[in-house]
């Protein structure tokens, strides 16, 4: 840190490099979002309601286009309950009707009862627009870091502290 202060050109290069990494990540995320037509094309599993298929911390890739077939019974979908902003990953177990008029019922594989109780008050079924994507790809465990960071905020401080220490202690 101190050494880079003495060389403003190098400091500026480092700053630009950092900004480049951030903007590349953001562009990839948004690009994936456009391709998959989903506001959140990659999600981390937060609960054990789909065990043993998905554990907490697993990474899921979503696809929200109906190019070949409609979203149908048996697919694992991620949906948002109206009025709540918590995405839920469950399997479609009933479907009545087609297209935008379809009424869908979901259930977690590890739950005894279906999701009627999880839905908003007065909502008995999901519509297609409540769904933000069907699960198409799976990578285990990789997302656990985000769960750790959100459940133990002090870890963020520790991580920043270690990074800062490394920057200060390093020698050119």
């Amino acid at each position, binding site marked *: 840190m101190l050494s880079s202060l003495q060389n403003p050109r190098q400091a500026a290069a480092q700053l630009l490099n950092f900004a480049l990494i951030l903007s590349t990540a953001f562009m990839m995320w948004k690009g994936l979002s456009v391709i998959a037509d989903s506001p959140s094309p990659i999600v981390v599993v937060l609960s054990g309601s789909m065990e043993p298929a998905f554990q907490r911390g697993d990474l899921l890739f979503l696809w929200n286009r109906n190019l070949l077939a409609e979203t149908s019974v048996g697919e*694992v979908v991620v949906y948002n309950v109206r009025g709540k902003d918590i995405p839920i990953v469950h399997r479609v177990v009933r*479907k009545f*009707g087609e297209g935008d008029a379809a009424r869908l019922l979901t259930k977690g594989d*590890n739950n005894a009862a279906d999701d009627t109780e999880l839905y908003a008050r007065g909502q008995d079924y999901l519509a297609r627009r409540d769904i933000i994507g069907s699960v198409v790809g799976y990578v285990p465990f990789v997302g656990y870091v985000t769960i750790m960071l959100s459940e133990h905020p002090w870890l963020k401080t520790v991580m920043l502290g270690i990074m800062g220490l490394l920057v200060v202690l*390093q020698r050119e």
Partner: protein
Amino acid sequence: MYNSLTRIQNVFGFFTSVAFVVAAIIAASDLIAPRTPSGMIEPTSVQVVKGRPHYYSTKKEEYAIIKFSLEADLSSLFTWNTKQVFVYVTAEWPSLGADGAVTQNNSAVIWDNIITSPSADHLSNMPPVALRRLIESTAGRVIDPGRGKFQLFNHKPKYQITHPSGHIAESSDVKLRLHYNVQPWVGALTWDQQGVDLGLWKRLSDGVSEAFALPPVKRKDDAKTSSSKAKTKTKSKAT
């Protein structure tokens, strides 16, 4: 030039690229494992009752209880990258308008089962004794040739089926269909291919029942007399 931070960055970067390549190879290996699933399904007894399908149901509605027989061999779906196979049976039936034309199609799961691969047995949600027995049954083996083979005769459905309209009795052209969903350890989730062969993955042979119709609603007094009959029978046996 080489300080500790760049060294850590390099090691971490190398680790992630190696992990990514290994994961991609494992995921791609699914494509060279042949799949030859087969299944026979037929309904054995069908009943429509009016009542509350769940304890938390707020209204009385018609629901159908479809017992079925199933003989399936899905053992070829289990490879080293299989975590579990989710097997499910759906009932599919059309809703008819007043003029007899199809207004919408309906499908509902009546039965499902999770078959874990031996490598995922420890994750399954079952009583400890059964779990220990399951794990011991395949000690040291990656693939158990018996997994995915099953025969069910006149099996009770796990879920009774309903319709948002509250009416389901006397629906015609109902079909039962067997499906599966293969969950890998890493890679793409795959389903039954709905009548299409994809390379080494053959379609599910058979797997659909003949069309049948649901009976009219069973009247309450019918049910009462039959259940009271059953009770008297057991009583007479006991005495």
